[in-house]
């Protein structure tokens, strides 16, 4: 094991590095500790059995990891490492799997099919609902979420709710919801509420108990700029929502947002560890930690209070990985690793206990973190790496942030 590998796998080593960085004149807030950095990554692509490398959705269900791709569904059994996949010839009703959710009670997998409607995979059988044979409003389904006995589908023509017990379909559009646009990008369910990410209509919150809607829009109504800071959602073209521990996390194509019920906070690449403002998805892990999948890598707000981020990217030329720890605009630490994201165009994030799965346009990444800790941690000094080498990396990382990541990261 090389020194570099040792460094990459150990948060203890990160603590060491940050203490050394303090000695180089980096911000004193480093004394508050450092976040956990995932350094043990595995990749899964077509070569490993995925039906397609464009991974649009990931959903963990116990030992099974369901993977939705542009041309098929796959299931990775973590116990055996085996991947089984289904394409149309295997009964999958439509090739493009854009969203996944598992019914926690029945164990059934619900599948959003981009252009093909909605499917249920249960006991090896695919059931298919589409706009001709059911009440589904449209076949272009971006996302799916299970809420009690209901299944919600975010579609390009509104949201549909299917009651699996009564068989009733309900459509939500501008007619019966505060949906200024009906292009629904994302749907999630948490704590008795459905959250829809709607292209041009911000986030819509549906209270299941009262059947009432609440909308979160950009109050300044400016499409190009965030005129008033933290006045609401950063932009109404939202791509993802995630509600956890009372916090609503939002991704958009123009920055990210966090809402605690009273205050909004906007996040932009130029002032945080976000690799890009072009957010494809968001997954909140707690009130203080959220992962943003962007077109230039994955930005992780690891500690909201201190604005501490970890930015995961892949070097396009070498395919090696890098994690940059920053606080605000200040880079605290750079961790190079042999492998990180499979590709910088990240489309999905899924938590799996201490582990994290990232779907990208070039395969699936599995970040293993058996010793993951939330928030920050101050570790004793146990340096293994030369100070000058780290300082050079810090300088390079700063420069990269200033210039932006190369467009080579975009998917072909």
């Amino acid at each position: 094991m090389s020194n570099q590998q040792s460094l990459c796998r150990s948060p203890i080593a990160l603590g060491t590095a940050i203490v050394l960085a303090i000695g180089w004149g980096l911000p004193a807030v480093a004394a508050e500790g450092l976040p956990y950095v995932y350094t043990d990554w595995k990749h899964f692509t077509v070569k490993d059995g995925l039906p397609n490398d464009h991974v649009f959705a990931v959903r963990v269900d116990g030992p099974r990891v369901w993977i939705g791709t542009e041309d098929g569904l796959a299931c990775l059994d973590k116990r055996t490492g085996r991947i089984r996949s289904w394409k149309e010839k295997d009964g999958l009703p439509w090739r493009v799997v854009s969203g996944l959710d598992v019914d926690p009670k029945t164990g059934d997998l619900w599948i959003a099919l981009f252009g093909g409607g909605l499917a249920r995979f249960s006991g090896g059988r695919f059931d298919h609902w589409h706009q001709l044979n059911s009440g589904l409003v449209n076949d272009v389904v971006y996302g799916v979420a299970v809420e009690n006995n209901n299944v919600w589908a975010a579609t390009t023509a509104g949201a549909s709710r299917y009651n699996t017990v009564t068989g009733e379909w309900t459509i939500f559009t501008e007619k019966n919801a505060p949906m200024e646009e009906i292009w629904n990008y994302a749907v999630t369910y948490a704590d008795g509420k459905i959250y829809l990410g709607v292209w041009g209509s911000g986030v819509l919150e549906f209270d299941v108990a009262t059947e009432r809607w609440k909308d979160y829009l950009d109050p300044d109504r400016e499409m190009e700029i965030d005129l008033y800071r933290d006045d609401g959602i950063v932009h109404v073209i939202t791509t993802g929502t995630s509600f956890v521990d009372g916090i609503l996390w939002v991704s958009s194509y123009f920055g990210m947002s966090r809402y605690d019920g009273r205050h909004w906070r906007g996040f932009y690449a130029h002032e945080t560890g976000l690799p890009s403002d072009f957010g494809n998805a968001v997954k909140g892990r707690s009130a203080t930690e959220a992962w943003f999948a962007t077109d230039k890598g994955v930005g992780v707000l690891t500690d909201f209070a201190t604005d501490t981020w970890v930015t995961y990217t892949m070097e396009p030329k070498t395919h090696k990985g890098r994690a940059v720890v920053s606080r605000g605009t200040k880079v605290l630490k750079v961790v190079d690793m042999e492998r990180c994201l499979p590709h910088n165009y990240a489309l999905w994030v899924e938590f799996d206990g201490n582990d994290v799965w990232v779907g990208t346009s070039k395969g699936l990444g599995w970040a293993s973190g058996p010793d993951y800790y939330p928030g920050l941690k101050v570790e004793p000094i146990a340096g293994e790496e030369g100070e000058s080498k780290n300082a050079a990396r810090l300088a390079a990382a700063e420069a990269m942030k200033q210039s932006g990541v190369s467009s080579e990261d975009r998917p072909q």
Partner: protein
Amino acid sequence: MGSRWIVAALSGLVLVPGTVALGQLRKPVYVGSEVCASCHAGPGFGHQFSRWLLSRHARAYAVLARPEAKLIAELSGIPEEPQESSMCLGCHATGAEVEEWEKDPSFHLEDGVQCEKCHGPGSEHVEAQRHLNRAAQLEAKMEIPTMDFCMACHAEKGSHVAVHQRPMLDMEAAWKEIAHPTPDEWSRAEPLGLPPPASEDAAQYVGSVACGACHRGPEMGYQWSRWKMSPHAHAYAALATAAARRIADEWGVAGDPQRNAECLRCHTTGWHDPAGGFADGFRLSEGVGCEACHGPGSEYVPEAIMRDPRAARLAGLREQSRETCLACHEKAHGKPFDYEKALAEIAHPTEPARQAGGPRYKTPLNMALRPDGQELYVACEASHTVIVIDVARRTKVAEIAVGGQPNDVTFSPDGRRAYVSNRLDDSVSVISVPARTVIAEIPVGDEPHGVLTDPTGRYLYVLNTLADSISVIDTESSTEVKRLSASRSPWSLALSPDGAQILVTNNLSRFVPFRTPSMSEVTVIDTERAVVENRVVVPAANLLQGVDWDPSGRFALITLNRTKNLVPMTRLLQGWTITNGLGIIWRDGRVDQVLLDEPGICFPDPADVAITPDGRLALVTSSGSNRVAVVDLRRLIGLLEEASHYEREHVFPNHLGKPTEFVIRHIPVSHSPRGVVITADSRTAFVANALDDSLTVIDLGRLEAVGRIDLGGPEVITQTRFGERVFHSAKVTFRRQFSCHSCHPDGHVDGLTYDIEPDGIGVSPVDNRTLRGILDTAPFKWEGTNPSLSRQCGPRLAVFFTRIDPFTPEELTALDRYICTIPRPPNRYRPLGAELTEAQRRGREVFYRTRTNDGRIIPKENRCATCHFPPLYTDRRQHDVGTKGPYDRESRFDTPHLNNIYDSAPYLHNGAAATLEEIWTRFNPYDQHGVTNDMTKDQLNDLVEYLKTL
């Protein structure tokens, strides 16, 4: 006066009908006949109101209390009281299908067929008249019905003909009978007010409708309806007749007798003795009502008082007396009055009405042995009971009343509780075994069949046959914790010996593409996680019913049919139309199929299978041939294991010769054997003979029946019961291969599209239709060519289906009668009187709409309600709705009824539409089946939701 409409009409107060609920204008609403009477009464209007009161229309609701109505209901498969059946009320009342908010407080369902039944809800008409607004009057013009409209209810109905034995209604004569023209020189008289109270302290009259709130129904001897059908209820209206005019003239009454105090004294309630006055809701037009004899009721009308005779008397309830009657009847109009005779005529004792109908059979279906083996519980569908058998003594020791149509029973692992599925009630009865009483009812999904607990007893699995789902019940809290997806029509289930899996058979095939073979499913439940872990496909098979595990846990056996529905029923290849057999479901998911039919004789309708605990034998019941097949499992498994893959996949499933290699005995039992259970010592089996109300005891050492346990059913075999036996017997088919029940399990559908006639493969394929509630929907057949059930089930059946001699006339008559009595389950989406959901309400607007979304008039012949009107939602005629396929001979098809339409997929004449939505999204491109292509997706969803309520 109880009606604010009447008040409005009298006082000129501006009251907009129904403006309260929902925060929006509610109109039009039904206002009730009394409001119509505020104008349409009296000689100036030709006594229209009184003519109606004296007509049979006014008694239409009340006659549903007659025994004949019960018989008709039985022949229509209606299990409810006729006065509580939306089907009966659809023609015997007004506005039965509308919601409460669409009825003004002055509206009463009990008025039967009143003005608004034919002329539509009256609120707008009344409003327009009151304002004398000509434009509004035209806009609110009441419907003027045609004779065709009347035929919606008066078209000949088999059930009514069978009971009343009357010729078809002469509509011309009936039209004249109910004629009530408005005189050319009409004039409106102010309604007659009620007399003022005699004493503010005295009790008020509340009106007979208020009394009827309790004094109705069989448990009260239908008292209200008996009164309504009596001359007393017509006493007021009778004053408008020519006879009354004649008498009035004799008495020197110059004016309208209905306004003469002397006439009203005996022809109404309370006129001569206004007591404390008249409460809201009292109607003078009720004639001589309850309170005319029993005194004003405001003080005794509360139920708590009425249930205490002394309290009721103290509150003013009067006993009827000779004097009461004589006060009016003595020498009235010169007519003799026999008090005793008259009293007998109007007798209305407060005691339950005698149950109509014939003997109550038991119909045992499925059984379960108590874990200690000492008792056998038998679910008896027809008696709504579970019968307890002492296994050692082989006698019936108890009978426990449970819910409606119990189907299956199982025990908790500790044997202290038994669970019974109630198919009619959508519930599970929980029985305390020590107490032999029902201690709880658990609501589950539609038409539950099989029930079984997991090895720990924590979860109870209930198969919701009509909902295609499995309810998982937490037995401690008696609540449903989740609902799993089954395939179609989950039927029966069995726990693996290691307790890890439950196999569920599904009676119907999955939906398959048009004209492709069946593909049925055995659903595998992981009992540890209580989830579906696998779905084993059984190709080319359907009617998967019985299931049991081999004690080794290597495999399970299921019963199945192999229906050749894609080829004409003339082809004898591969065993003809419906072969019967077994499926072997291996633990790893592989499937074998073998037949139980043999070349000369078939084994029709295999219903259940049980394997001896020693793994030696399997017993299979054939409900169509009254036999039990004994399968030597060693031979069966050996046969399979020695065969090639090709033989197992392609030869055995259709090989009529193979059963002789493993079926070692056929044991005759009694009528329609269904469930079979075997004792833990593998020595005895019990078979439930559904249509003999008995169990057959089989000695598994001697392999013969050694006893019969009588469950206590009636000795007499009624015509209906005989017909039920004919329905379930394969005696009438070539090679004794199938019965009516084979294609109509539970009297319903097998979900298949058949190629029946020898006109070429694939020509004129037709969807199988339900038999539930069939009698009144003549003509039959998708092409509507069979005018009666007798024709449908007689010659036609022999020519196209059974292919041997037809039923005898006796059999055919009995069969037809039985088919008519197959229960029609209550609608699951809208119990009688329930409010519609918002979506259903919007859907109803779509159903009855007359204009497209862009305002174009929809031609009347192309509106939903034109052909599908209540209560059957069929005009019983043939129409071309653009669904003719390339292989159809005809383009015009019978209009199907829509009652419980949600449970009989697929749809259209050829079953091409798997869902209701597809009828319009795929098969109505030119708006021939209703104008639907302008509709938005949410409108279609709403329409579907409404259709489910019909």
